[in-house]
């Protein structure tokens, strides 16, 4: 444990950017957890007398068309956006790695079948598939999560499969089999943990992508329902106000979104360094 911590501190020191990203991540989690309690205004309360006001002391981020405080909305949206991305990626991770590991280990028809399903998903332009799923099932938060999860499954499946195929014939697996472990147990207890490192990297990269995906869906009208605050939909609304000069409506949620995605991407790079210095990129 201490060795890991020491290694961690070494890596963080080596790479200040990763340290920064990690701090940002902690901040995001704190905001997501405690945000709604900390904000000065009710994110859903309209106040049309104060509509479209630029940032001021009363409203740090200004107000939107209905007079809602943008700071409150941006902070409260953290919870929803993090939830969407974390849930989507977790589901994709669980399903994808299970599929990939199973296919890689058993081979034969199982592998081929799983491979065909993955090919089908991958053949779709990903964003369009998400669009289609949400349009078909309705734009609820759950459906956005499922759609994002589905389009991310192939990444984990492929990764898991290749890792398993490399290690399938390794000595320690042979030993586990001789010791009496059955297939599924070997999969879960021995093979899977060894596949985790590269997938952790993929997870953090995907987290950022999931948020952007939700934002894109909002832009074309398939995002979360109003009046829920969500970064993507706030950026989409703000986009309509750029030309008329109300820059704050789009900028602050856009900056929050950008910071979060940025953070996840850098975190992913940093994690890669932490876990396997040999593969440092």
């Amino acid at each position, binding site marked *: 444990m201490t060795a890991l911590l020491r290694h961690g501190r070494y890596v963080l020191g080596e790479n*200040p950017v990763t340290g920064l990203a990690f701090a940002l991540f902690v901040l995001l989690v704190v905001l997501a957890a405690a945000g709604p309690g900390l904000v000065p205004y009710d994110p859903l309360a309209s106040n049309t007398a104060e509509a479209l006001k630029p940032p001021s002391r009363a409203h740090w981020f200004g107000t939107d068309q209905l007079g809602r405080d943008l700071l409150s909305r941006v902070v409260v949206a953290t919870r929803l956006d993090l939830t969407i991305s974390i849930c989507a990626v977790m589901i994709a991770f669980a399903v994808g790695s299970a599929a990939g590991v199973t296919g890689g280990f058993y081979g034969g028809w199982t592998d081929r079948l799983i491979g065909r399903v993955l090919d089908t998903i991958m*053949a779709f*332009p990903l964003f369009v598939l998400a669009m289609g799923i949400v*349009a078909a099932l309705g734009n609820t938060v759950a459906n956005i999560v499922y759609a994002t999860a589905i389009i991310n499954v192939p990444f984990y499946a492929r990764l898991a499969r290749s890792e398993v195929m490399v290690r399938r014939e390794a000595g320690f697996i042979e030993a586990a089999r001789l010791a009496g472990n059955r297939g599924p147990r070997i999969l879960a207890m021995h093979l899977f943990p060894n596949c985790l490192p590269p997938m952790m990297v993929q997870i953090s990269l995907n987290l950022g992508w999931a948020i*952007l995906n939700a934002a*894109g869906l909002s*832009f*074309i009208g398939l995002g979360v329902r109003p009046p829920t605050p969500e970064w993507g939909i706030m950026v989409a609304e703000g986009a309509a106000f750029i*030309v008329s000069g109300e820059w704050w409506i789009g900028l602050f949620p856009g900056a929050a979104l950008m910071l979060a995605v940025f953070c996840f991407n850098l975190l992913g790079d940093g994690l890669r360094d932490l876990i396997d210095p040999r593969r440092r*990129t």
Partner: protein
Amino acid sequence: MLRLIGRRLLAAAPGLAGVIAVTFLLTRALPGDPAAFFAGPAATREAIEEIRRSLGLDKNLTVQFGLYVRDLTRGDLGKSLTTGQPVRSDLISRLPASLELTACGLLLAVAVALPLGVLAATRPGSWVDHLCRMLTTAGVSLPIFFTGLLLVYIFYFLLGWAPAPLGRLDAFISPPRSITGFFLVDAVLGGDFGEIRAILRQLALPAITLGLFAMAPIARMTRAAMLGVLSSDFIRTARASGLDRRTVLVTYAFRNAMLPVVTTLGMVFSFLLGANVLVEKVFAWPGIGSYALEALIVSDYAPVQGFILTMASLYVLLNLLIDVLYGVIDPRARIEA
């Protein structure tokens, strides 16, 4: 080589079949009722049923699927209810616009990301490295439509440097005589220099928007691949033999690092084709992305199906191209494992 191509195409067939089936189900699952929509505002129930019958939507799903597949084998992708044209001609007229835009975006991204990646690889861990990483990551961290709108605002509205975001060509210039459908190619073939410039100007902002998005994975992969190659033995030998930095970097290291970069390029290209949808909306670009999006919103099945099928086929072709390129770049890859 031909056997390779043939085998790849065969391997792609089940994937395509899956795409056809899934797309069909997906479009049928869309909540809207195209018959109700296109019967118009004052239609009665009978009128709508009439239209439903004429569209063939009253038959059960299996029959509809059968008819769809039969039409596909004849090359008939159905008719779009929104434009009223056969989907095939719509796609043929709109695909070059998307491809041209994506290709230009990719070219721009490569032009910037490749040198950045190489630069970062030669000075790993330095501030240059970190700066490169942050720059490219920043490009991919904003939603693509937001970047596009911001660019329009700054470069068109405020500064007036970029032309009006009216699509592929200014309203008052007629397009070049259509040979390939790619305006740039057609204009070059036609020899009209002024037109080439007009076309490039319209392409600038949307291509930059797409390019910004594509920079990060390319730079990252270049850096990784270069780092891997730079630490290998033959590079050490080359350096020891006294070759200058330039030759080592370009002639030896880069060529060998190309392989994973080419794979990434392929992935990025297909990803950009999907992201096209958003950019086309912002820049009024008449490509297949905006076509499919409009059709999706009104539950117009045929264009959505046609669009997805086209994209999937493009993806297969692209992967094939990359496999062939592999063989060209690295003779070792020509020998099948």
